[in-house]
């Protein structure tokens, strides 16, 4: 992201901010949609993110960090949406826990359903770390910095989330996997 553009936006230049928002919005929306699992909630979160970005942009110290800062704002907006809306949970209840029609020949579909179910069971904080890691492609250190959490916490959330997703994909072997849910990984 062009730091000059960010600096101009910090000074109140709406055209500059419009360019920044246009460049980021679709990606931020998809991040939110992945975290929340609901397109409407994601839109609310992404839009709130844009509003917060505009209002708080003058406080951003380092224009080079605009992109990671924007992720943090949208993730925080996702937390707020997840708290105040339970709509995504109702979607979960529509889905059968075990799909009798799923067979090995439709592995991709099975994976999707299993992942969806496993993912929706995770706390939103773990979902955020998984999305930033797997979808955005941030490293754990970058995630910790972006979300302002200790790197050990980022590591722990990723580990637990991946463990849960793996378990959902290997339902038959779930009992054989080590249970990490009670452990907080610190370093």
């Amino acid at each position: 992201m062009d730091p000059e553009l960010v600096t101009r936006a910090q000074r109140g230049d709406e055209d500059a901010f419009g360019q920044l928002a246009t460049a980021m919005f679709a990606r931020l929306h998809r991040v939110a949609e992945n975290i929340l699992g609901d397109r409407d909630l994601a839109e609310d979160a992404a839009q709130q993110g844009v509003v917060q970005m505009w209002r708080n942009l003058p406080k951003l110290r380092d224009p080079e960090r605009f992109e990671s800062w924007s992720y943090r704002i949208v993730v925080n907006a996702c937390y707020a949406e997840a708290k105040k809306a339970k709509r995504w949970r109702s979607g979960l209840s529509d889905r059968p826990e075990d799909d009798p029609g799923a067979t090995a020949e439709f592995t991709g579909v099975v994976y999707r359903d299993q992942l969806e179910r496993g993912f929706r069971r995770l706390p939103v904080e773990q979902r955020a770390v998984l999305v930033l890691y797997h979808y955005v492609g941030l490293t754990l250190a970058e995630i910790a910095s972006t979300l302002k959490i200790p790197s050990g916490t980022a590591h722990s959330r990723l580990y637990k989330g991946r463990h849960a997703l793996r378990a959902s994909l290997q339902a038959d072997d779930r009992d054989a996997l080590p249970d990490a849910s009670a452990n907080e990984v610190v370093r």
Partner: protein
Amino acid sequence: MNTERELDRIIEAWMEDRTGGPRPDALADALDEAYRAPQRRGLARWFPFGLAGDGSLTDREHGRRQGMLVGLSGTLAVVAIVMVGAWVALLGGDVFRDTGPVPGSGDVLVVGPGGDHATISAALAAAEDGDTIRILPGRYAEDLVITKSVLLEGDGPAEQVVLEAITDTRIDPETGEETEFLRGPELRDTNAVVRGLTVDGLGLANGSYLDAGIVITGGSPTLESVRIPRDDGNSSYDASVLLRSGSDATIRDSSFGGAIVAVGGSPSIIDTDVDAIYIGCPLAAGTDAVYVCAPGERALVQDNRLHGIRIDTGASPVIERNSIEGPSVDWAMPIPNSGILIWGGASGSGMAPMIVNNSLSGQDVGIEVFGDADRSLIEANDLSGNQTGVLIDGGDPTLNSNSISESVTGLVLEGSARPVLNGNAIESNVLGMSIARFAEPEMVGNVFCENVTNIKAPGREPPDLSDNEVCTDGSAS
């Protein structure tokens, strides 16, 4: 699905496929809503970051030498600083300069019902240096710019002598735009004393984010027993007191709901309740990203009760005997919130921050050293009950005789931090110390006991702990 890599591939493909993206009008709607509200112009106005543009901060060898210097005991160093400060003051002529009559030594002018004057402005116009302006209980909404060295004193309980903030305007130096903000009295190049009153009416009522209860520009004024309550409840970025460049104000025994923002000078903030304190340096002339305090400038922050202190590039305050309790102040930065944040530090003024004998608890991070050139002395502090006691990410501070306990992680050395650790007690934490791969601490006489795990050094060999005491109830790993 057998391997971690396969799991990665499945998750990534699934995430890529499961989203539909935004509606075509979603962004336009968001921008419409965004532009209805003004931008929050917070501390960036006072402390825009420019670490990358400050080449002096990367001189590591110079930093190490300075680090050795500040490795003296805190007591000796404080004494030395006080002596040097006095010497500099003598050379600067402060002691011999005629500063005019002492505020409160002249005539008394009474303001209020039945008094000599109906307004403070009228009394100020009539007063001479040294006079006392005694303000009777009541609310006074006046545009006050105090340039005379008078004593402005509430005559009654401070809660009943109220100066109401007024709307002022400023020209943004960058955009040339005029911005409205709320402020109380301004003290300009004066040695006035303001005592025993309240400044009220600050907040976000007019959509401004530059409010300042009292603005101090230059001079050596004193604020004593002054109250500035916080009435918006959510903006620690509003400054209860804004000290502009070059002020050597003294603030003591006061209570502020917002922050004290000090830019340059050598202010003293003592025995005061305040939300947060920000200490920085002014922008160097002819630059847009270099912040430099004048040689010898050093703020003193002592015996206060607050939630956080942030030390920005170039500033070298003495932070001593403060009680800094959580919740942590949100520094609006993509790093963990902390009780004391040292960002850069130690340039221009030729000195390093000193953090001595403070108590920090309930913080996300007790003390956080960030940036590449810090040579701070962090000594004899009590850090207990924080998520992380001390986090050092870069720089080479010296940590002497601190107690770091009852934290999830006592001490975290990130990045290529090169601290000197002498005689610290790191006890009763879940993890005593975490050392990143490229961190290079020098460690002598530290104690690691009663931690669930004493030390973790992922991806590297554990450091040489032969000159330290490591109890066997936690394992080095």
